[in-house]
């Protein structure tokens, strides 16, 4: 039986609750929008890391690509925002499929190194073709989208726009995770050799997971560029991949709502701590060490434990310490 907190409707309900709570509890609509946007990108990263067991440093490529598609589409080509968002979705899927197709030919550390190499390659492509991307200065003057002739310039009006899209894509990712396709990804993650022996085309499944993840990440990148008015070079840097991975691990690789939790916790902590202490990243490092050592199910695992305490249900087990984080996601075990 699926535990209460892991039920799809409960997960979606929690996402809706967060979307509704943020405007009530936060002063900054911009930060609230950023939480949802990164929540999407982290959920997409989770599909690879938590559901497929692929630790990819390539997510920044797709996030940056989405930002550039938004910039080029809106500023240079004058396309409407919905078309630009669809282009980001399609472009992200295509590039991710290509990156995935090459990278999955190797496993373990070699797979990770390949995604890192792609990440560096795309960064330098963006850096070199500065006429197209704006280089180090970024692609400036990206406008906010229009809705019914009104520009969504206010922070909370843009938040509402992002919130609707976030919930739609969150639901779509949930559908993917719960489908036969998603269950097969879990089987591949848990025992790739067995999944292959049963007859599943493992590589095709991995490439498809990459494509879906890349599409959603690029979509988030496009929304981010519209939020801040620029497609900065840093969006395609491998540091973005690293940040997305850190958010994923902080939230927990157990389910998709944990991704929103990870993105929110990271961004809120960064916002608060950076104003207090210039070396706040040290604290982040400490947090990561603690999570890796003692809370391998991330913040979501902590919530599960708290709920188990209240309901007197048996607490979820943390995975064995020597298991990699990717293999630590346990939803499929249930």
């Amino acid at each position: 039986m699926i535990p209460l907190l892991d039920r799809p409707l409960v997960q979606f309900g929690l996402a809706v609750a967060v979307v509704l709570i943020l405007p009530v509890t936060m002063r900054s609509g911009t930060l609230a929008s950023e939480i949802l946007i990164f929540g999407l990108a982290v959920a997409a990263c989770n599909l690879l890391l938590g559901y497929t067991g692929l630790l990819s440093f390539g997510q920044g490529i797709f996030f940056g690509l989405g930002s550039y598609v938004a910039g080029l589409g809106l500023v240079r080509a004058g396309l409407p925002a919905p078309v630009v968002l669809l282009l980001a979705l399609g472009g992200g899927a295509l590039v991710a499929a290509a990156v995935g197709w090459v990278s999955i030919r190797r496993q373990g550390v070699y797979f990770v190194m390949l995604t890192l190499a792609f990440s560096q390659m795309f960064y330098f492509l963006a850096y070199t073709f500065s006429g197209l991307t704006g280089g180090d200065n970024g692609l400036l003057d990206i406008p906010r989208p229009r809705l019914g002739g009104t520009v969504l310039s206010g922070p909370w009006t843009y938040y509402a726009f992002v919130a609707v899209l976030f919930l739609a894509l969150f639901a779509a990712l949930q559908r993917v995770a719960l489908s036969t396709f998603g269950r097969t990804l879990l089987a591949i993650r848990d025992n790739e050799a067995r999944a292959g022996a049963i007859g599943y085309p493992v590589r095709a499944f991995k490439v498809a997971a990459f494509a879906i993840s890349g599409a959603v990440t690029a979509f988030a990148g496009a929304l981010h560029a519209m939020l801040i008015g620029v497609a900065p070079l840093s969006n395609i840097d491998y540091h973005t991949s690293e940040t997305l991975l850190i958010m994923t691990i902080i939230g927990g690789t157990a389910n998709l709502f944990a991704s929103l939790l990870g993105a929110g916790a990271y961004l809120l902590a960064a916002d608060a701590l950076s104003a207090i202490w210039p070396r706040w990243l040290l604290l982040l490092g400490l947090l990561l060490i603690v999570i890796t050592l003692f809370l391998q199910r991330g913040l979501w695992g902590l919530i599960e434990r708290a709920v188990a305490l209240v309901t007197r249900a048996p607490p979820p087990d943390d995975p064995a310490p020597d298991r990699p984080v990717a293999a630590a996601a346990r939803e499929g075990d249930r």
Partner: protein
Amino acid sequence: MRDRRAFLKTSLTAGAFAASGLTLPGLLRGARAAEGPLVIGAPLPISGAFAANGKYASLGAAFAAQEAGSVLGRKVSIADIDTEGKPAPAARKVQEAMGQGTRLFAGGILSSEALVMGKEVTKGDGVFITTAGADEITGSDCNRGTFRWTVPTFGAIAQTVRPLIAQMPQAKRWYTITPQYVFGEGLLTAAKAVFQEKGVEHVGNSYHSLAEKEFSGYLTNAIAAKPDVLLLLNFGSQSSDALRQAVSFGLKKRMTIVLAWASGLEQFEALGADLCEGVYFGAQYWHGIDSPLNKALVAKVRETAKMTPNYSFAGSYQITRLLLDAAAKAGAADGPAVIKALEGLRYSGLTGEEEIRAADHQVIKDYYLLKGKAKSAMKDKDDFADVIQSGKSFLSPEAAGCKMA
């Protein structure tokens, strides 16, 4: 670090109160009923790779605010905004600050963050003044709400390469090392134009990436080209690394080394006098500048905080002070009024007489050529260099590509 920063801020605050000789002209102290504090946003890289610059810039802004006390009857306060040295958080946090009512911003050390913040502030009818380096800020991306204090690449080259060519007519072969992005290209283009005009041979150039730390390969290429002068066109830690490696390769004995865009005192402190001796540095600011405002600032900061203002401190101090002066002159602290007051403003600044050009919002000020002196010749611990030359060189707004909207 936090303790030191807190100590410096406290000391500077106390010092600024006592700085009656530095009172800003035209400030209408207590003339109006209090309307709440006048908040100046200081978007600076307080954390991240450029945190050291951000720290001093934050102190400079705080000093200017404390010195002013109140403007238009409102107590001046500085709201530090940590940009993390990245354009995305910078844009987001400036949006947030504008959402909370802040309209005047002084900061932005890095070009990429300054460009995007200028656009954001302008969209919200605010004013942003920066010390960032990219030519585009008052060139192709100039806009109504953005002002820039620093001299662009054209002036930096004109005030370093030109006087050195005149001073060393026998040095006919120059080699350049350039970071391959917009800022580096700007410096290189300007340098090539001067070489061509003066009949100097440009014997080679090495491009490096923004992430480069190892310059030995480029320096080997430079040695092979047998130049008389090595011109470093990178900045910050990259120029320090390149200079360190050049000196350890023995290049200082073989050729003249020029660093066209130095970071000022903080860079000298990091490099040390032995390494800097005999090397030429281009600089936006130097604490030894002979101007009334600079002398007063240096004396007061030394007295109160036991430190000498460096470029990050002084630049931030100057631009914060400019915003406050303009608000006082305009009689209002809203964006359009302050913009109007800043355009065409002539004032006695840290580098002497300065003027804000209305057509592109570029401050017309001096750029300095320094020469590192021997440790034995230093009069105090900060006396790393002599000012060899200073002057104003600027492209016209049209030539810089500014089409003000």
